[in-house]
């Protein structure tokens, strides 16, 4: 649309004048609302993960935005597994069906290269949002927002792995004494994977089958996150920077995978195939001493939002008041997915879409959104972590937010290059095969070979460039 293209410089000039006026009295959210009112009567569509996530725009932010601006919000719910597919397919077909997109930040290279996303710098400056972006925790802001030098997405979800542990078990004097006697160091949240193993083993031996030491998410599509985290903490590099040869089958990779298999020793039977729901259920039922998940169980364990109908599918928590939070062993937790808001390049209504994104993402609105009991958006702004309101939601909410904040400072980025999917899938196959009893080394060697083939197909130079952009980001490697 030529109109859209010329509109930006014109309006940029307009706000340059407006900036001289006392506009800073307004917040970014208020500015977005004011600027959006000119689009009153129009409709913008936003893609959202189907299910719980989508309740936010459906029941909360969408109606509120419509009331403020007269812009109707149409939510297009898409199952997470189809989200990438549908996003790129609609772009290819040039339908302009989506205005605002929920994307997983790791998709940035693919989506930007395919021309799906609108660069946002001009909009950010135009509507005075740059300062407010500084409040977003660094790891999300610096890494999940840009590709190359341009802003393509507003980070909108503080996903990071958290180690949850049972304070009643860890604080029990008998367990403390028995554990220290056996292992020579005090019982505390594990800082290494060896400690994780020993603590798991201790609790499993002491309490199974009522309670096991630990369980982790091993489901395909997710298991690679844990490997990526541990591999990098142990010193691994995904690729040789020069040749782009895959390095996941290095001794480091093999050792990590062997240890992932070893950790199964102390988990409940069948845990090698557990997904998020199985881990969560066992945890809420009090059957685990430790587990690693995204931030939501911190809320759910305390029964926050349990009265909500949208959460009625969750089993009742039996561990409220007994939950401690820590960084995962090694202290550099994987961010593991997350969401960001992007404007579709072939939307007819880009400015209104952007303004909705800015409003959603702004300090005051996003705080309300991350506190929605049913939504799965997790705190991602410094002001969220420090919010007195949030810290008062349950007795240990302060600890919870402090841990999330720590994770937001130390978190490791998900691998994000061209066609990351293919690499992840190949890696997943190697991991599941090892977890099922296959030889870790040969599984990783096969995967590394597949990685090389994928790289060659994409073009070594193209991929090297994408990889070096990613690897140069602050939290790509520890």
């Amino acid at each position: 649309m030529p109109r859209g293209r010329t509109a930006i410089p014109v309006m940029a000039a307009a706000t340059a004048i407006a900036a001289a006026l006392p506009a800073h009295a307004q917040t970014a959210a208020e500015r977005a609302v004011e600027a959006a009112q000119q689009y009153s009567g129009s409709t913008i569509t936003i893609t959202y993960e189907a299910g719980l996530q989508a309740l936010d725009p459906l029941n909360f932010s969408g109606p509120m935005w419509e009331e403020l601006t007269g812009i109707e919000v149409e939510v297009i719910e898409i199952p997470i597994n189809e989200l990438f597919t549908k996003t790129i397919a609609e772009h290819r077909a040039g339908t302009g069906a989506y205005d605002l997109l929920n994307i997983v930040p790791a998709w940035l290279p693919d989506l930007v290269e395919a021309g799906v996303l609108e660069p946002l710098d001009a909009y950010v400056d135009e509507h005075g949002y740059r300062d407010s972006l500084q409040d977003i925790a660094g790891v999300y802001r610096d890494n999940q927002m840009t590709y190359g030098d341009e802003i393509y997405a507003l980070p909108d979800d503080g996903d990071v792995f958290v180690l949850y542990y049972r304070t009643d078990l860890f604080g029990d004097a008998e367990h403390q004494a028995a554990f220290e006697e056996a292992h020579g160091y005090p019982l505390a949240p594990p800082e290494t994977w060896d400690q994780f193993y020993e603590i798991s083993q201790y609790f499993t031996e002491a309490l199974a089958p009522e309670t096991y030491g630990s369980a982790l998410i091993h489901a395909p599509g997710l298991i690679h996150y844990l490997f990526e985290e541990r591999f990098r903490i142990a010193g691994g590099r995904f690729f040789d920077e020069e040749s782009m040869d895959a390095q996941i089958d290095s001794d480091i990779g093999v050792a990590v995978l062997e240890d992932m298999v070893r950790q199964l020793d102390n988990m409940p039977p069948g845990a090698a195939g557990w997904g998020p729901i199985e881990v969560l259920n066992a945890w809420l039922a009090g059957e685990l001493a430790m587990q690693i998940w995204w931030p939501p169980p911190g809320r759910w364990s305390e029964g926050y939002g349990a009265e909500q109908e949208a959460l009625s599918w969750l089993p009742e928590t039996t561990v409220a008041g007994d939950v401690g939070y820590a960084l995962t062993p090694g202290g550099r937790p994987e961010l593991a997915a997350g969401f960001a808001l992007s404007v579709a390049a072939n939307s007819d209504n880009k400015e209104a879409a952007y303004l909705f994104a800015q409003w959603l993402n702004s300090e005051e609105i996003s705080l309300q959104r991350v506190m929605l009991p049913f939504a799965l958006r997790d705190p991602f702004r410094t002001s969220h972590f420090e919010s007195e309101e949030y810290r008062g939601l349950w007795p240990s909410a302060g600890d919870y937010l402090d841990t999330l904040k720590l994770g937001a400072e130390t978190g490791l980025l998900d691998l994000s290059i061209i066609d990351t999917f293919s690499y992840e899938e190949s890696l997943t196959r190697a991991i599941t095969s090892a977890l099922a009893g296959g030889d870790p080394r040969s599984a990783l060697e096969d995967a590394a070979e597949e990685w090389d083939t994928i790289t060659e197909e994409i073009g070594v130079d193209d991929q090297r460039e994408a990889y070096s952009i990613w690897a140069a980001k602050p939290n790509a490697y520890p």
Partner: protein
Amino acid sequence: MSRAAAHPAASPGDRSAGPDAPPALGLWVDRHFRRLIVAPAVLVLLLIGLFPVVYSLIVSFQKINRRVEDTSFQGFDNYARLFGDDRFWESILHTGAITVIALPLELVLGLLLAWLFLEKLPGRQVFVALLLMPAVMAPFVAGAIWRLMFDNIFGPINQILGWIAGEPQNVMWLVNNDPFTVYGAILVCEVWQWTPFMFLILLAALSNVDRSLLEAAEIDGASGWRVFRRIVLPAIRPVVLVALTIRGLDLIRLFDIVWALTRGGPGNMTETVSVFAYVKGFERFDISTTAALTFVVIVSLSIMLFVLLRRVEIGR
């Protein structure tokens, strides 16, 4: 179509058998009637059926993927890439394996069921109607059902196995590196849904077997099994072939239940040709290779059909 529809309005005074010459339009419609009434259907089929084939053929010689849109002629690159891709051959193998195991199972089970219900039985109609339910459910929903049945924690299958074994069972049916459990689950779902189809058709076919043939055999004193093999089986053979053809062609394009149960996983362990094409086309957006794949599928299926349709007399 519009002309044909306009005809009755123009015709009340028109007596084609009468001595008066009918209006010119009426004559034209009458002369072309047989073509006019077949035309709309053929046009719709051409639009929806031919466009994809032509499109796939063209695009399969170009290079279009997520990042590149190069419409210049690329020779057989995409076909070479497809044939060089292990996953393509594996997807054929997976599809073939499911077909080869499921078809005979459905046939034998269907036959046994038909045998059971052949003679008069109180409430036979009710039984048959109930048994047919799986076959009329949406295949995706059938897959969802079995995903729940096979869930290692919330599903009843492990529970039942636990009762039999005397201790809790924790088989990870669908997420497992053991093809036996994963394929087992898919096959159970597939066979559960489509055995009733075989059953119903075979029941009808068996009921129609000519009694006089049997009597002759019985006079010869043939045993039950021999009667079945020598007389009943040949009599129902044409129907069996039709049923196998219909089911076989369905199995070759198997997608829904696999999508619901495993999405082709773990890894690509259960990726059928259709799932592979979906992943390649819609997830990878490797459009040209997918076009090559669909073209290969269409051509090979057409050849197969050509051969089959000449042998199997569907509906004659």
